[in-house]
């Protein structure tokens, strides 16, 4: 009998190949390219390629005055626009030792927490959508619209507000601000139960997120993973607790910590944080004191020569501003230590050995905002 000789064809399991996820991929939520090495369906390694929307913000800041820089920081983590503005304002106020009026502190804290809620709402919407629950997207955006309406009335903008200025606020709050905010809280307390029902309690969702992308506490610290992603691994890193600013040392709230470190834990941290944020606003909204909405500031702001470091807790984690001033009206050097930048660096580490569909779940649970990485 004639012998048939087969040339060995590599099976799918043996062959390693690379695919590009992005730069235009719905699950990257922006222009990020992930070069994924796959063996079959298993992720062997992953290389992020950043820079598609790098604007050279740190270089631009060297030519801009401090009030101008505020408008740039909106465009870093656009979902935490208020909180980014807050960081620059605090940097200037602490350097010049300016005491801002109580009213400003109240309004800023409320605005920051509204910002955190709407950021988590949008994250919840898109995270649900990434995992196949399209309803989430409509529910989340519907409720987020209410916060945008409140902001539009007071700040004149829905998305990039630039509402804070060094020393205070751009304008006073709208007369309806307190009423509308309270209405929103009442409304959202009902709606967030739907969130729990649709996604948190969904069997498919839980199976897809439990024990997926486990990040240990040691690795979270070593990679500098902060915010809800770090707290899902039990890393206590809430700047509002550790280095309080505005009114965070006066209000009562819990730092949410989960110790599992998987995708579900990161999800649960954000869900619980929405309740905590509402709890913070509850304590403040009726007590906004009367007074000025801004401290008296000089027309030209110059920081004394020296180095300053200011950190705030954005919806994504720790934002650090490292400023070197030479006494001029523009900073000599301003470095942004952005949370998404460090959170992205861990993606390769926790995705290895998992399926490519899990990569989408993990990427969603890290809540990356690409302009925050690229700056």
């Amino acid at each position, binding site marked *: 009998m004639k012998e048939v000789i087969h040339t060995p064809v590599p099976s799918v399991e043996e062959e390693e190949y690379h695919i590009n996820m992005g730069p235009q991929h719905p699950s990257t939520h922006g222009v990020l390219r992930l070069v994924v090495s796959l063996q079959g369906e298993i992720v062997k390694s992953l290389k992020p390629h950043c820079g598609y929307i790098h604007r050279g913000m740190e270089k631009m800041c060297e030519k801009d005055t401090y009030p101008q820089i505020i408008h740039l920081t909106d465009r870093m983590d656009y979902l935490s626009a208020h909180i980014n503005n807050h960081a620059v304002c605090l940097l200037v106020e602490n350097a010049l030792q300016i005491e801002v009026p109580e009213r400003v502190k109240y309004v800023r804290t409320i605005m920051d927490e509204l910002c955190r809620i709407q950021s988590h709402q949008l994250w919840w919407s898109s995270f649900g959508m990434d995992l196949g629950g399209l309803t989430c997207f409509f529910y989340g955006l519907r409720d987020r619209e209410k916060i945008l309406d409140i902001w539009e009335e007071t700040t004149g903008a829905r998305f990039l507000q630039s509402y804070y200025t060094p020393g205070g606020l751009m304008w006073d709050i709208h007369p309806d601000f307190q009423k509308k905010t309270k209405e929103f809280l009442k409304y959202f307390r009902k709606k967030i139960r739907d969130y729990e029902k649709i996604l948190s309690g969904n069997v498919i969702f839980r199976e897809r997120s439990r024990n997926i992308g486990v990040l240990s506490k040691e690795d979270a610290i070593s990679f500098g993973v902060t915010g809800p992603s770090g707290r899902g691994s039990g890393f206590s890193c809430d700047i509002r607790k550790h280095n309080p600013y505005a009114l965070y040392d006066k209000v009562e709230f819990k730092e949410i910590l989960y110790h599992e470190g998987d995708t579900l834990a990161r999800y649960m941290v954000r869900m619980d944080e929405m309740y905590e944020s509402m709890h913070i606003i509850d304590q403040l909204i009726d007590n906004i004191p009367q007074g000025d909405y801004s401290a008296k500031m000089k027309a030209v702001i110059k920081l004394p020569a020296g180095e300053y470091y200011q950190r705030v807790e954005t919806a994504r984690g720790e934002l650090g501003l490292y400023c070197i001033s030479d006494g001029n009206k523009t900073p*000599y050097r301003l470095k942004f230590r952005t949370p998404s930048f460090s959170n992205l*660096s861990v993606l390769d580490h926790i995705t290895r050995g998992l399926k490519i569909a899990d990569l989408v779940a993990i990427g969603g649970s890290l809540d990356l905002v690409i302009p925050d990485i690229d700056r």
Partner: protein
Amino acid sequence: MDLEKLKERVLTLAPEAELEENKQFLTFIIPTGKLHYIALKLKEDEDTAFDYLFCQSGTDMGKYLMVVYHLKSTTHDHSLVLKVKTEDRQNPSFDSVCDIWRTAEFHEREIFDMLGIWFNNHTDLRRLFLDDNWVGFPLRKDYQDEVNIVEI
């Protein structure tokens, strides 16, 4: 550990370290050659335990290039800032700390990208944001780009 003890500890590790006064954090300028040794010691000794590098940044100070390490201990809640400097603008290089704090992998790539500082023993040092064939290092003060930078 309080600031005095921390100060003593750094000075025993590196007697030639220079203390900078009047800073927000305890700040030392340390000799370039000892960077990796000091960093590793500070992280591994239990009473210092600086396990969290919360910011790493590079700056062109005109006369010299500088890399700044902002460190924090999550167990003891104390902070420390280390600085290293070099006057070599042609081939500036420091030892990488990415084996001590993994977050440095990305930060060092960004510093290399923007300031052209080389980090020895880094696992994968490439440009991070800009194209591989980009000429020059944008965050240097003598960087010139007539196309992309518009002077007003």
